[in-house]
Each structure stands twice: as structure tokens, then as C-alpha cells.
């Protein structure tokens, strides 16, 4: 079950919210835990048991780190992190295939959200080890940190202290639910109206034998991939934040209109903000602290971005994508500091990001280079009727996606809020939300859910 399914929106969510509402405050954590367990059970019993065991292992590791003498603290820390990393690699790759059979989960399926809750768990253990955070003896609250269903799929990665603070300061009222539903419908529309349409375009290009692909078709394919990736990730992130808000918890959004920026470092700072922050806090910063040499620090920066790339996909292409992104930021900073060249401009950023993302899309370095060659006419075919056909039918959605990935709409709304027409928003906002929900429902009404996923995280 994902957020973008009729089952979730019209059965699980309203029933969960109703139960949560009628439950006394002191029992709200328990009911949320029970609901999250049921949500996990929709993946099957064994994946649900796996997640419970996963929580238990990290909970016990946290307790051990906190309570045993300092010189032994590194042992439970290492065990906990090793366990988390092995689980992540086993479910995200074909390694450790026996674990799939143990959990009864098919090779291509894994506990939804494992990429997110693994980072949360490692961060929690590291914070306790460093003394930045106390371990929590409340297993239910700790489990909610990892598996709370509104946060499970592409939820915001926050520290445990931030999570507990948010949990303790829940603001639960009709206005917050309204805000949450607004965010949720916005995310749902991003996923169903834009990402799914672009997924079809990207699939069409992928189905074309690479030797028959024209340059125009290749450009269309990679543009569709980038936009689809952005709208899938940010759509689920918006849905998750919206759901959390419906349950009284406000978490920050993970994307800040990164695509059409004037510098690569601005793109990087607006792309999956909490994820990038997590890697900076738990990997870059501890390593960099041990070295004063700026070149070593730059090397660490690039290495961490390589690991970040692997978080998106266990392939050489994904790692290379991360590495190139890191190198691009280092070069850009260097050129800026020397004040000889100031690379800037939306076209420069977008071209660089597009070429780099080819490797993530293709999954291997060699295929990536081949694809880039085709983008520049390597097949001796600049454009063909298939590319014209794809462009004809997808130009509207591409333009809409480009507009929606900029901050133009948000700025327009901000200006309206400050003007004398702000009253109109009170009327338009619920209408637009309702219309978006109905359209998305119509699109899901064929099979009951949106099945096209560009990336399993």
C-alpha cells in the first residue's frame, strides 16, 4: 500500500485519522503505533515482523551504547550500524539474496521506506554515541520514529530529538488538518498528474532500442527522467509531510525548487535537503574534522556525494552520478573563488545536471557515456518521427512540469496573500484541492493505485 492508492486515501487514512482523533492524548502514540503496524502488515506479515525486529535491534543497540562504559560503546554502535547497512544493501540490491527468502519478500520488493528509516536509525545511534542525544527507553516512541506510517514513505529525515520534540508539541486542530490535506493533495497531484505522465514518456524512450534512438528522443527521455524523478520524490515528500501535519506534526519539506537554479551548489542545497544534511552531519563532518588540508576535505566531499548517489540506486551509474555532482560543486566553488569565471545561469546548471543525471538514469557508466553520445547525434540520427510523436503528445505536460518545478506559482500566491485579493484564496484553495483530489482519484480508479515508480526507496 502506498499513499497514492484508493485503499490508503479512502479507507486507511480516514479510519486512522478518526481513531486518532477520538483517542485520548496519552494514548495517541499507542494508536499511531498500532495503525503503523497495520500499515506495515499490508506488505505482508513477514515484512511487518522484520520491521519490528529492526526497531528492536536498534532500540537495544541504543540502550547498550548509552549504558555501557565508554570504552565499549563502539561495539554496539558498530553492530547496530552494520546490521542497518546490511539490511539496506540486502533489500536494495541483489546481494544477500537469502535475506529475501528469509523475510518472504520477493527480490524486487523490500520493506517500503527502508532507505529512510535506515538513515534515521544510524543517525540515532551515532547521536547517542557522541552524547548529543539520550537514548529513549520508550520502545513505542522509538518505533514511531522509524516506522510511523505518515512518515514511512519518503518522509523527512530528522534527528530523534527533533522528532520527539515534534511529537510532544503536536498541534492538532481543524486548521492543521486542512494544511495537511493541502500538502497531501499537492503531493498526490505531483505524483499522479505529472510524474506518472512523464514516467510513460521515459518508459517509451527506454523501450526504444538504444541503437535506434535519435538525439531528440534521447533528450526527451532524459528530461522526462529528471522531471519524473523530481516530481515522484517531492510528491511523496509532500504527501508524507501533509499526512504528518494531519496528525499534528509539522516536518520540513525536503525539496526547495532545486531544478531551475542558477548554480549547481544551489541545486544541491535545494535537492533532498534533509538527506543531504544527514550525509553532511554524519559522514562529511566527522571525517573532515580530522583533516585540515582543503584538498583532502574536497576529496571527502566528493566521496560522500558518491555514497549519496548510491543511496538512490546500487549501481555504478548512480555512484558516478553522485561523484560527478560532487566534483561539479567543487569546480564551481573553485572558479567562483578565483573570480576568473563565474559560472551561473539556469541553462548552465540545467545542462550540467541533465548530462550528469544520464548516469543515474542508465544505471551504468558505459551505458551513460553511450547515451550522452546519442544525445549529441552519435547514432547519426538527430530526430525521427518517433521523437516528433512523443514531443507532440507530451509537450503540454513537459511545459507544465517545468513551470511547476519553479517557484513562480509559489511567489504568485505569496503576492496575492499580501494584496487586497487575499480573500479569494479562501475560496479558491478548497476548490482547487477538491478538484485535484477528484482528478487524481479518477486516474487511480482504473487499478486502484498508481503503479509507476521510477525508483524504489
Amino acid at each position, binding site marked *: 500500500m502506498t499513499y497514492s492508492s484508493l485503499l490508503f486515501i479512502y479507507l486507511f487514512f480516514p479510519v486512522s485519522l478518526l481513531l486518532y482523533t477520538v483517542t485520548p492524548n496519552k494514548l495517541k502514540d499507542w494508536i499511531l503505533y498500532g495503525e503503523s503496524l497495520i500499515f506495515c502488515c499490508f506488505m505482508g506479515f513477514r515484512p511487518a515482523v522484520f520491521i519490528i525486529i529492526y526497531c528492536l535491534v536498534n532500540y537495544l543497540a541504543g540502550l547498550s551504547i548509552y549504558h555501557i562504559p565508554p570504552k565499549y560503546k563502539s561495539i554496539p554502535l558498530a553492530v547496530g550500524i552494520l546490521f542497518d547497512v546490511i539490511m539496506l544493501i540486502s533489500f536494495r540490491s541483489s546481494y544477500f539474496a537469502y535475506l529475501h527468502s528469509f523475510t518472504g519478500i520477493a527480490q524486487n520488493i523490500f520493506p517500503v521506506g527502508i532507505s529512510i528509516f535506515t538513515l534515521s536509525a544510524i543517525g540515532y545511534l551515532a547521536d547517542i554515541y557522541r552524547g548529543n542525544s539520550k537514548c529513549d527507553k520508550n520502545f513505542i516512541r522509538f518505533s514511531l520514529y522509524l516506522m510511523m506510517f505518515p512518515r514511512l514513505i519518503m518522509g523527512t529525515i530528522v534527528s530523534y530529538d527533533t522528532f520527539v520534540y515534534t511529537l510532544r508539541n503536536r498541534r492538532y486542530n481543524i*486548521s492543521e488538518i486542512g494544511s495537511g490535506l493541502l500538502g497531501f493533495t499537492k503531493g498526490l497531484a505531483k505524483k499522479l498528474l505529472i510524474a506518472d*505522465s512523464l514516467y510513460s*514518456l521515459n518508459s517509451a524512450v527506454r523501450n526504444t532500442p538504444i541503437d535506434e534512438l535519435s538525439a531528440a528522443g534521447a533528450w526527451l527521455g532524459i528530461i522526462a527522467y529528471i522531471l519524473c524523478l523530481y516530481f515522484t520524490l517531492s510528491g511523496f515528500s509532500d504527501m508524507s509531510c501533509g499526512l504528518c501535519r494531519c496528525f499534528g506534526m509539522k516536518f520540513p519539506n525536503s525539496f526547495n525548487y532545486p531544478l531551475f537554479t542558477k548554480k549547481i551548489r544551489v541545486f544541491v542545497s535545494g535537492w533532498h535537503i534533509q538527506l543531504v544534511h544527514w550525509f553532511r552531519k554524519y559522514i562529511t563532518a566527522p571525517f573532515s574534522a580530522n583533516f585540515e588540508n582543503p584538498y583532502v576535505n574536497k576529496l571527502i566531499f566528493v566521496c560522500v556525494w558518491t555514497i549519496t548517489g548510491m543511496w538512490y540506486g546500487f549501481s555504478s551509474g548512480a555512484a558516478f552520478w553522485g561523484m560527478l555532482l560532487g566534483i561539479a560543486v567543487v569546480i564551481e566553488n573553485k572558479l567562483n573563488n578565483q573570480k576568473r569565471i563565474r559560472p551561473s545561469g539556469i541553462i548552465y546548471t540545467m545542462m550540467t545536471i541533465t548530462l550528469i543525471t544520464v548516469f543515474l538514469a542508465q544505471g551504468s557508466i558505459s551505458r551513460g557515456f553511450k547515451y550522452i553520445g546519442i544525445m549529441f547525434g552519435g547514432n547519426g540520427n538527430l530526430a525521427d518521427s518517433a521523437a516528433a510523436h*512523443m514531443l507532440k503528445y507530451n509537450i503540454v505536460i513537459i511545459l507544465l512540469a517545468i513551470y511547476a518545478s519553479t517557484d513562480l506559482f509559489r511567489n504568485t500566491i505569496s503576492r496575492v496573500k499580501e494584496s487586497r485579493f487575499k480573500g479569494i484564496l479562501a475560496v479558491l484553495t478548497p476548490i482547487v484541492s*477538491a478538484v485535484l483530489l477528484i482528478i487524481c482519484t479518477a486516474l487511480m480508479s482504473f487499478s486502484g493505485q498508481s503503479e509507476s515508480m521510477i525508483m524504489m526507496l
Partner: protein
Amino acid sequence: MKLAEKITSIVVMSIITAASVVSVINMAVNDNNKITLKNIANGEAADILSENIAADFFFGNELRSAAAQIGAKAGEPLVNGVYITEDRLLSIDEHSLSEGVNCANAVNAFAKDYEGAVYFTAVPTSAGIYGDKLPSYLISVTEKQISEEILQNLDVKIRPIDAYTILKNLSENYIYYRSDTKWTSYGAYCVYRTVAQKLGFIPVSYDKYAIRHVSDNYCGNLYSRTGYMESRSDIIDIYEYDDGTEIVSCKGTDSQGVVQDISLYDMEALKSDNPYDLYLGKDMEFIEIETTVNNEKSLLVIGDETADCLIPFLTKHYSKIDIVSADCFNGGSVEHINKADYEQTLFILGMEHISENFNS
């Protein structure tokens, strides 16, 4: 903005609540796939529940229809795996060449220890015949390629009938429904002419048939998948030829083993959700047809739903025709019958069946 959020909360929650309540009531009333503990344990429950909700959703048909209209107008006219062309709906199905090899291997296994003659025909879907109306990037392996793969891999003792070429040459005619993947009675008749000759008979000529339009508002399986209102409904025909032969008995055995009298044309089916059941009624595992044809010849047909439309033509040539559902065919052995009892066996398998059952 607080006011906007409050109104949004009320409006959106009202829509969700109303749709939830009606959908749950519909699901409770209708006999859908039931959720079992086993389904929940293996993680299939979510998919089954999602399909049930989609089937019984509040204004579900209207929503699907609206989504199809928007999809067809706004971008690529591809809705729920169905491509909408100007004159027909075409299903986009993924195929692999291994389907053809696996299918041929299964038929070869049947023929290995069989002393009679085996005939085989693979019937393409409408997308196989009218695939040139589809953008090339949507189809990686064509039904023609699979058909050729089957023919290449069939044992030499099996006599192939190339339905693809026959139907492709007649594609200007009304041989496929516009809103369905299957062939029309006329499409089946065109292939019957070749089948009858191969089986050793002179086919009944077209002008001898009295053609009766039994329905002119048939909306096929592709319409059901899209709800696309602008697709034209189809005509269902019955070909009747009174040469004095009659059907003596027609008995079907369902999957529960219950034997019941059925007819070549089940007129009641025209009022049901699946009017294509007109031909030989609802799905049966085994059908026995006895006729007044006095030649002591019997034929075993192993086929799927596609074959149902062609069987009535063959009843003019055999005193006995036994039909086994392709679902009961598993290579060497076939449920319900002893294959040694038949001198001739005819396989009529639709590409949809081949794709679903021989893909691995």
C-alpha cells in the same frame, strides 16, 4: 489563510468520507474477491483491496470515463494500457519471444506420444493486426514475431495454420471488434476456411450463411478497461447455415465438475456483463458437442475464449467435437480426456492466452 485551511479541511474530508462510505457499502454488497488470512500474510491483501475499491468506487465508471477523456485529449492517448486510435481501441501488451518458444514446446510435448494429426493456430489480438497504428516505441516485440517464433519451433509433424497472415491480408474488413481484443465472427470465418481445408473438408462458402446481427451495442473488454465514451460500439453476428445438420447435445463441465446443458449461442449472455459469452456460454473446462453429421469423425479442440467463436463453423463437419479449455492444457497431458481417443486435435490459442501462460 486559516479560513482557507479550515474550509479545505471540511471540503476534502467530506469528499473522502462520502466516497469511503459508499465504496465500502458497495464492496460489502458486491461479491468481490475476499480477503483471507493467507492474502494478508503474503502481502496480496493491499492489491486485492485496491482492486475491489476501484471496482466498486463511488461513481467509479464516471470517474474512469472522465479520466479516459482527459487522458486521450491532454497527452498520449494511452489509458490504462489501452491506446486510443481514431477508429479503434488497441491493447498495449508486453511480449517476449520466449512466449513463442515455450508455447511451441508445450504443443510439441502434446504431439510427442500422440498418433493423430495435430493442427495449431495462434490467433492475434487486434493490436497484433492493427499494430501499425501504434507508435513504434510502445511495442518492443510484435505478435507477428511471436507467431513466427511459434511456427519455427513447432515439430514438423504439427501442421501450422498461419492465422496472422490470413487476418492481416483482410485487415480492411470487419474482422476485429473496435472495442475488444478479439476477432469478430467474420474474422473467425476467414480463418475457418483455411482450417477446414487443412482438416480435410470443403469449407461452407460465405454466401450460404444467413448472418444475424444479435447486438449492435457491444462494448468489449478494451472499453471496460478505459470507459472511453467516444469509442464506437460493436456489432455481434451469428452465422447460420441450415444444411439439415443439427446439434444433438452440447454439455459443458465447469471448474467444479458440474455438468450442464449449454448451447452454441447463449442469447442470455447478451444481457450480461460479458456479451462475448454468447459463444458457447460461460467459461467451461470441458465441452462435448454431438451433431447429426453422419461421418463418425471426432475432433479434439484445445483452445481459450478466442476459439469459442470458431467452433460453430466446425460443427458442420464433425459428428463429435470435444473442447478442452486451454487452462487445462499442460504440455503432455490434458485434463478430462484421453487424447488417444481422437484422430485429430486442433489448437486454437489467442495471443493473450499465450502471453499470460507461456511467458516464463
